[in-house]
């Protein structure tokens, strides 16, 4: 917990990360509150108001799409879905990565060598094609998207956690636990894992944009979130088809996606710098 406070204290000094964080929180708040106060519904089609330009009157901030559905509500729903998928996927990758990395790092020796060789092997694969294969092979449901995306992103986490565990393993409190007869599994999960919180939080911030990218990539190709549900990737896809007459349908979701990804990357970069600086001391 102390390391968390340290990270926060340093983060506060970096303007870029504060700005990114505020923008992200702002977008999230609008994405949750916006659809609640808007008079429009994300499903409601309206054939008198097809492809309306964005306007301030009548709560049509982002205009409407080719079926007359309100694009503001749909975009905000897209933000919600995209964020949800990304966060759950990151948690999946966190759990797999931390467990894998901590075991490899703590057990060490031949087990470590084999486990990390396996990670190296997986690194060499074009994973996205396997995700597409997975989406083809099974029904396209929400849960599977989470798992599939999480299953790609754990490799970095595993490597970093392993590195940290290697150094934690030599510390006195681990030796003390071992001497007093605590089992290996308990040492890993009760003594080592809590000390990984700092580094894990930093890398989750970098995993979230990757998960967003994969989700919107799949949705863009029509393999992810299905109509009438939507995500930012699906909205960009719909916008591409309408861009000659209704450029806002492309530009608005594209800009939202770009801003969200940019903010997460700035935030993650700043956090990593803070963490590396702390590590070096």
């Amino acid at each position, binding site marked *: 917990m102390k390391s968390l406070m340290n990270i926060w204290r340093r983060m506060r000094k970096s303007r870029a990360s504060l700005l990114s964080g505020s923008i992200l929180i702002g977008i999230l708040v609008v994405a949750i509150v916006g659809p609640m106060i808007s008079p429009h519904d994300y499903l409601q089609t309206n054939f008198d108001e097809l492809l309306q330009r964005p306007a301030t009157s009548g709560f049509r901030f982002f205009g409407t799409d080719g079926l007359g559905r309100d694009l503001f509500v749909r975009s905000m729903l897209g933000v919600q879905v995209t964020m949800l998928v990304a966060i759950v996927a990151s948690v999946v990758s966190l759990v797999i990565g931390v467990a894998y990395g901590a075991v490899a790092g703590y057990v060490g020796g031949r087990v470590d060598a084999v486990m990390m060789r396996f990670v190296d092997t997986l690194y*060499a694969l074009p994973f*996205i094609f396997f995700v597409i294969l997975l989406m083809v092979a099974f029904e396209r449901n929400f849960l599977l998207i989470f798992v599939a995306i999480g299953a790609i992103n754990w490799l970095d986490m595993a490597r970093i956690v392993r590195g940290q565990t290697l150094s934690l393993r030599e510390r006195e409190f681990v030796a003390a636990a071992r001497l007093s007869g605590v089992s290996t599994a308990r040492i890993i999960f009760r003594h080592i894992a809590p000390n990984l919180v700092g580094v894990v939080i930093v890398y989750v911030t970098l995993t979230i944009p990757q998960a967003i990218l994969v989700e*919107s990539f799949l949705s863009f190709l029509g393999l992810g979130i299905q109509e009438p549900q939507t995500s930012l990737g699906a909205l960009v896809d719909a916008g*591409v088809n309408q861009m000659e007459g209704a450029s806002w349908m492309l530009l608005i979701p594209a800009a939202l996606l*770009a801003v969200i990804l*940019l903010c997460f990357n700035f935030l993650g970069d700043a956090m990593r710098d803070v963490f590396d600086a702390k590590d070096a001391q």
Partner: protein
Amino acid sequence: MLRYALLRLLGAIPTLMLVIVLAFLMVHAAPGGPFDDERVLPPETRAALEAAYDLDEPLHQQLKAYLSRLVQGDMGPSYRYRDHTVSELIGNAFPVSLKLGAMAMLLAVVVGVAAGSSAALRRNTLMDRAIMVLAMTGISIPVFVIAPVLVLFLAVNLNWLPAGWSGNEGAARFVLPVIALALPQIAYIARLTRASMIDVLASDFVRTARAQGLGTSAIIRYHALKPAMLPVLSYMGPAIAAVLTGSVVVEEIFGIPGLGQFFVRAALNRDYTLVLGIVIFYATLVVLLNLVVDLLYSAIDPRIRHR
């Protein structure tokens, strides 16, 4: 060197086997067969079709048969395009993707290294910061956002370049797809080059060269560039995978009849043999290109070989 190369080549075989078996099992675990159309087939026709494609055999038999055909370069017939074999389809579609990908990689390396080096040389100036913010933007914005926005502004609004593939001839139709594909890689390479160039410029041998009166451009060209390129070279593996992935999107957006577009069509059509064939093809390509990158790396940096 030869021994190292052979060892690495042998090491790639289990990886490839893993890929093939995993992909095969995933495709065959899928609910719903390739003949589940809207049109319901009579049971006899269905049985005959399944027998023709060996789908009535037990799974391990099918895998064995698939593998033994695969080593002969035969990936079976496509379920959808019934007159063509998967190998034929890949052979027809891949050259376009290869051209696109190779041009994008070349552009990415040239522009990325130039931008990264000039940022490193002007460290902490306005230009350095501008390049780095641009690079961060380039990394963050996905290809499927960059590509349509480029089309909207440069092709639809300004009408400078063709928006699509078909109906256009010559080099102009390559410009937008290649730029869209290269931009994120330019950004990554610029960041990598800047970081490693800063390290190298601070090293002793550069200081010595400078003390001997060598100019900045000569130092960069003869002393700093080669060691600074090592991280960029080791990034080539992931870059190749990213360009292949990006190519799927770019081909879809511009309507380019390459392998990426085929892959998406096959995935949406549940053309199992074609999807499987393309995944295996891509994976083999990536594993082999990674091997080439590793060998190049060890050729440049002898420390790797002797470890």
